[in-house]
């Protein structure tokens, strides 16, 4: 207990010696945590949205006008031979007409004079949950296009590809901001502690002559790095939470954001980010201790 009271006494002294650099470091660590966790939050939400979209994904094969007898069984066999699917639904011209009519609702009278056969026969294919990879969907689509009787294959290709690119871009930003977090945490903490050690060089020398133990001299420095991590990640995550609340409040109910149903990071991810920041900042102080503290 007495050890900790001395440690905190030393910490107070260190803070008084270089409070500007301490504040700057805290600010930098907080900002790095905020930037990283913000992009991670976006990425996590994009992933969740991607999974939801994948669940609703279906490929529609529009068929030639004439569908010979036995076509459905043969078509189904060829599809399942290439790749197992969750479900295949054949939609006749009449069913397609009825669906369109239902979708138009009160405006369905515009179809009154039209022959139901103006819509083509189609097949709706629901791929299994693992068939989410864009390349595989594209391969599957290309295969379906080659089947006899298939006229056109549609699955919102453009939208899915754009979404995929966006997710990839966010992934790159997450990695870059993660690297930023690592660099700033380790280097800023290490640099600040180096400044602390240099400003206290005379005192450390005297402590050494007085017989101060390694733990007495190194303890406060190590804890200083840990506290930078603790406060930095706490401020960063708190800021992220308020930013999340602001975005949710500001954009809720609007189309794009509504589609994604944004949610905050799960506790497990928060713990991992906090732990990582603590390890990085403590690591920064260990680097400084090893390089600049001679006891």
């Amino acid at each position, binding site marked *: 207990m*007495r050890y900790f009271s001395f440690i905190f006494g030393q910490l107070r002294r260190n803070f008084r010696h270089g409070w500007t650099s301490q504040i700057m470091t805290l600010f930098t660590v907080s900002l790095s945590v905020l930037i990283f966790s913000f992009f991670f939050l976006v990425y996590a939400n994009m992933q969740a949205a991607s999974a939801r979209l994948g669940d609703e994904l279906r490929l529609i094969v529009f068929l030639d006008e004439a569908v010979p007898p036995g076509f459905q069984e043969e078509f189904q066999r060829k599809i399942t031979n290439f790749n197992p699917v969750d479900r295949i639904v054949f939609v006749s011209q009449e069913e397609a007409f009825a669906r369109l009519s239902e979708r138009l609702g009160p405006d369905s009278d515009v179809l009154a004079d039209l022959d139901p056969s103006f819509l083509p026969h189609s097949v709706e294919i629901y791929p299994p949950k693992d068939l989410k990879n864009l390349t595989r969907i594209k391969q599957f689509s290309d295969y379906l296009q080659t089947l006899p009787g298939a006229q056109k294959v549609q699955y919102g290709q453009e939208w899915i590809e754009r979404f995929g690119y966006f997710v990839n871009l966010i992934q790159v930003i997450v990695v870059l901001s993660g690297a930023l977090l690592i660099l700033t945490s380790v280097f800023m903490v290490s640099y600040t502690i180096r400044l602390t050690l240099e400003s206290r060089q005379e005192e450390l020398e005297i402590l050494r002559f007085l017989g101060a133990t*390694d733990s007495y001299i190194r303890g406060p420095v190590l804890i200083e790095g840990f506290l930078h991590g603790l406060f930095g990640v706490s401020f960063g995550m708190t800021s992220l939470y308020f930013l999340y609340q602001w975005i949710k409040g500001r954009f809720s109910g609007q189309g794009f954001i509504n589609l994604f149903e944004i949610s905050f990071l799960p506790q497990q991810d928060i713990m991992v980010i906090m732990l990582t920041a603590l390890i990085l900042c403590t690591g920064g102080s260990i680097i400084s201790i090893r390089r600049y503290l001679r006891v």
Partner: protein
Amino acid sequence: MSNEQSPPESQAMVEIVKVSKTYPPDVLALDNVSLVVNRGGLVFLTGVSGAGKTTLLKLLCFLELPTKGVIEIDGRDVSTLSKSQIQMLRQQIGVAYQDFRLLPRQTVYQNIALAMEVRYESPKVVKKRVLELLAKLGLADKVHTPANKLSRGEQQRVSIARACANKPSLLLADEPTGNLDPSASALVMDLFNSLTESGSTIIIATHDEALIKESGQRVVNIEQGRLQEILQVKFEGFD
């Protein structure tokens, strides 16, 4: 061999055996020096400037290592001690440096308390001891004064107070009265005497002849790195 008298191991606090110290490139600061100081003894080291007094003190507080020879403190060969053992031993050795080595921006209280804090003494004990020392050295009114606002004489007494704070088993003082008037010197000597009475061993490097004569203690003279004479005013030694 059997005719050589040496004090029982438990009685010698400091034992220096044929110690030499050479600074690069080839400056011989101490040459084959041997000395035994018993527990509770007070020894004056005298000699002209550059004779090797400070070097001897530095060897005794591990600021320097001997080039040759053996130094035993409290029965332990210091060259065999581990880092943590040296740290523990340093906590038992008080050193009053010639250049004081105080923290200029810290108060008198903080400077003295530092020596006790490294031993994790309780704040209550620290406060009691620091105030007691300041009263004994005539600095009671300077408790909260930063060290850089003190006169040299006051700084010297603070340095001495810090060295005495832990009631060390060995106290090394380098010119402890160099900046003091006779009355302040007397206060310092009273403090040293009270420490020796409670079992501390004290080695004082000094030029102050008046101090030596008044104390009537053992005197060792160093000249050109050699212990040339031992004036046994009141020998504590090997009987």
